C-alpha cells in the first residue's frame, strides 16, 4: 500500500528564516511526486511534479528535491504570504488516471 508521511506537522518561522519540509514515501514504483499548497478554505494548488531521484524544481522561494525515499521542499527567506499547508502526494505506476495518495501536510506559519 502506498504511504506518504510528512514532517513536521507544523512549523513556525520568522520572516527570512529558511527551512525545509520533509515528505517520506513508500510506493510500488513511483510515477510522480507532487507538491501542493493549500490555503484555509481553498482547494490544493499545484506547485511541482518530480519524476526521478536527483531531480530539482524551483519556483520563487520554493525548491523541491527528490531522492528514492523522500522529497524535500526548501523554503528560502520565507515571507508571511508563504503561510499555508503544504501537501505532498505520490502517484504510483499502474494506478488509474492521475490518482494521488496524499500525506497529512505540514502547516507552515511565517511571522513578520
Amino acid at each position, binding site marked *: 500500500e502506498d504511504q506518504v508521511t510528512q514532517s513536521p506537522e507544523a512549523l513556525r518561522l520568522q520572516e527570512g528564516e529558511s527551512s525545509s519540509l520533509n515528505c517520506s514515501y513508500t510506493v510500488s514504483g513511483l510515477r510522480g511526486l507532487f507538491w501542493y499548497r493549500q490555503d484555509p478554505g481553498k*482547494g490544493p494548488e499545484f506547485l511541482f511534479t518530480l519524476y526521478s531521484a536527483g531531480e530539482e524544481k524551483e519556483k520563487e522561494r520554493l525548491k523541491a528535491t527528490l531522492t528514492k525515499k523522500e522529497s524535500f521542499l526548501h523554503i528560502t527567506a520565507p515571507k508571511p504570504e508563504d503561510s499555508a499547508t503544504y501537501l505532498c502526494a505520490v502517484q504510483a505506476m499502474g494506478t488509474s488516471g*492521475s*490518482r*494521488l495518495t496524499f500525506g*497529512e501536510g505540514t502547516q507552515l506559519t511565517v511571522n513578520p
Partner: protein
Amino acid sequence: GAGVSQSPRYKVAKRGQDVALRCDPISGHVSLFWYQQALGQGPEFLTYFQNEAQLDKSGLPSDRFFAERPEGSVSTLKIQRTQQEDSAVYLCASSAGTANSPLHFGNGTRLTVT
C-alpha cells in the same frame, strides 16, 4: 470557466438526509476525481472518471456514496442517508488526462451533518 467550480460551498444536512454535490471541471479535461478531506488531514481518494466512464470507485466508503458524470463533463457526488462521520470537505479535481498531468482542484464543498 478558468478553474474547477464546486457547489454548494457549504451544506448542512440533518442525519439521514440525502445530499448532492456538484462539480464543474475545467473545460476539456477528460479526467475527474473526487476526494474527501477531513479536518487537519490530507485529501483521500474517493472515485475517478475518464470522460463519462467511472474507472475506479474503490475509495467510496460505503454504498451510500454514489457518483456520476453522465455526459463526461459535470459530475455529481451523492450521499444517501447521511451520517455524522460523513462530515468533511469534498474536493473535486480535474486533469487533462495525459501521463503525469497535474490535478487541478476546486475549493470544495464543506458538508456538516448534524
